[in-house]
């Protein structure tokens, strides 16, 4: 029995040690720093209490980032899930090339946000503009990335393009676990395609919707890489009478704040991001679980 105990400890040790050093310790330091005047350079940090938190909610740039991040997340939760649901129906249909399509729709997910950002920056700034000029289409002639009112939609398009293939696979797995006889029976009974989807498929997929909504929600809320290389926060805009960056999502706001050596302020913003994520995720899972039971 003694050998068993030693082996247990040895087996747990590497992961627990790494976890403590990489997640737990920095997490508590992170919480602590948000109450100090840490600037990342000087070795000491003085305790300042809730000063940063109190200031955050009067800062136009932070409030703006918060608002557009919420908007970006809402748009994406809807867009990604609608598109990926349609994709999942297509690749589980009886099309001859369905496996080929499934593989293709998933490809954008394999390419990281950094590389995708550059590719789409080129598409928006060069290709679409050049199409607009050649065909004299007015709205295409200035880039979607250079207008504050369209840039969030441009980012949502890219995000959907990247993420839909992944969520599609979750829906596919769920559809394939539904007994085929159920759908066939409804078909024989004369239920039209759309009502078969609404009344049989969707309720049976409740669990997959919970997972997918949770994933798209947290993914959009934490989005950084694509934001960084696609727009880098631009273009300039005004919010509450102050200059702000029109597409600077929360994660990028934190990054920019820290780059300006305002480490403690960045840390406080990150803690707000963390708390918001936890609250929203808990509400979302609770609501969905309730729906799952009702269905």
């Amino acid at each position: 029995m003694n050998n068993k105990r030693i082996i247990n400890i040895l087996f747990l040790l590497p992961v627990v040690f790494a976890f403590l050093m990489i997640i737990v310790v920095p997490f508590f330091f992170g919480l602590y720093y948000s109450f100090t005047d840490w600037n990342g350079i000087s070795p000491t940090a003085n305790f300042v209490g809730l000063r940063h938190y109190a200031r955050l909610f009067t800062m136009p740039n932070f409030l703006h980032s918060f608002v557009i991040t919420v908007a970006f997340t809402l748009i994406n939760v809807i867009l990604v899930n609608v598109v990926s649901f349609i994709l999942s129906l297509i690749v589980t249909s009886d099309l001859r090339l369905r496996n080929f399509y499934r593989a293709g729709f998933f490809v954008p997910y394999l390419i990281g946000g950094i590389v995708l950002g550059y590719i789409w920056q080129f598409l928006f700034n060069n290709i679409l503009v050049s199409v607009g000029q050649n065909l004299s289409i007015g709205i295409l002639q200035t880039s979607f990335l250079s207008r504050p009112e369209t840039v969030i939609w441009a980012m949502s398009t890219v995000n959907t393009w990247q993420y839909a293939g992944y969520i599609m696979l979750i829906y596919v797995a769920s559809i394939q676990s539904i007994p085929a006889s159920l759908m066939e029976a409804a078909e024989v009974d004369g239920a039209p395609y759309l009502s078969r989807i609404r009344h049989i498929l969707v309720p049976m997929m409740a669990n997959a919707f919970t997972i997918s909504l949770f994933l798209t929600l947290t993914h959009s809320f934490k989005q950084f890489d694509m934001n960084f290389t696609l727009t880098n926060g631009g273009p300039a805009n005004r919010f509450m009478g102050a200059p702000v960056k029109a597409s600077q999502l929360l994660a990028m706001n934190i990054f920019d704040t820290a780059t300006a050596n305002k480490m403690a302020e960045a840390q406080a913003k990150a803690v707000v991001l963390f708390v918001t994520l936890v609250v929203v995720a808990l509400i979302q899972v609770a609501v969905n679980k309730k729906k799952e039971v009702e269905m």
Partner: protein
Amino acid sequence: MSQLAKAKAGSVPVNPLQIGRNPRRTWRIVLEIFTIFLFILFMIPFAMVVVNSAKTSREIIYNAMALPSDWGQLWTNISLIFNNPTVDYFGAFIDSVAITVISLLVIVVFSSMAAWVLVRSHKAWAMWIFMIFVAAMVIPFQVLMYPLVRWMRVLGDFIGIRLLGTIPGIVFAYLGFGSSLSIFIFHGFVKNIPYELEEAATIDGCSQQRIFFQIVFPLLQPIILTVLILNGIWIWNDYLLPLLVLGSNGVVQTIPIAVTAFAGAYLKQWDLILTSALLAIIPVIILYLFAQRYIIKGMVEGAIK
């Protein structure tokens, strides 16, 4: 008999609005065309990268839509990138491969070991450790990143191994960040392995470590695939962690860092930026072509968990 069933049997059209004799067939053609349209829409960005990687900067500005006048320009652009003095692209590729492979190896071995112990110890502490690992998944990277860098410097000085700017350092960080999800996935799988097998081996006098490595670990094979793929895609494409741990112009680089360094150095020179993006995409696509079945399968398994 219902309308659809009648139509299926090939009788007279039930709805005058139906174009074809068989509504299912019409529906299929519409679906097929719609799918092909969607598929092309999904692939256009890649096509644009390939086409414009084979042009000069002037050609792109002149007409970004046109096909390149000389595909040979692609090789010129590629060699420009490989021979570039500011960004060591090939070195970044090798480092990316090394970091990803070693991190995956470490994550798979250590996480499965830990998950096995956590499942087989029916004690309160085992449940608590597991819950803490799972709960940590909601912590966004932004909360950890700056304290982490500072802490890794302190820790590195303390244990006498440089953690910042080195491969061991970043592998250690990936073990920490990857452990939560990996333990969660392994935990769910190990729970369903019958205990009788291990019991019999214990009675035969087999040691715990041998039971794990010779009996349990081989059984984990399908779920190891999932863990490899989920972590592999993330680590290969990760940007912020390598940026903070390795630095933007350190000795060790990764592909995403090299691409941003390139784009930063050659502002708006789309011929070079797109070619560097293409070079970042190609290895992933090649791997995907060979392992497509496993990757899709691994992702689907991971999604249900």
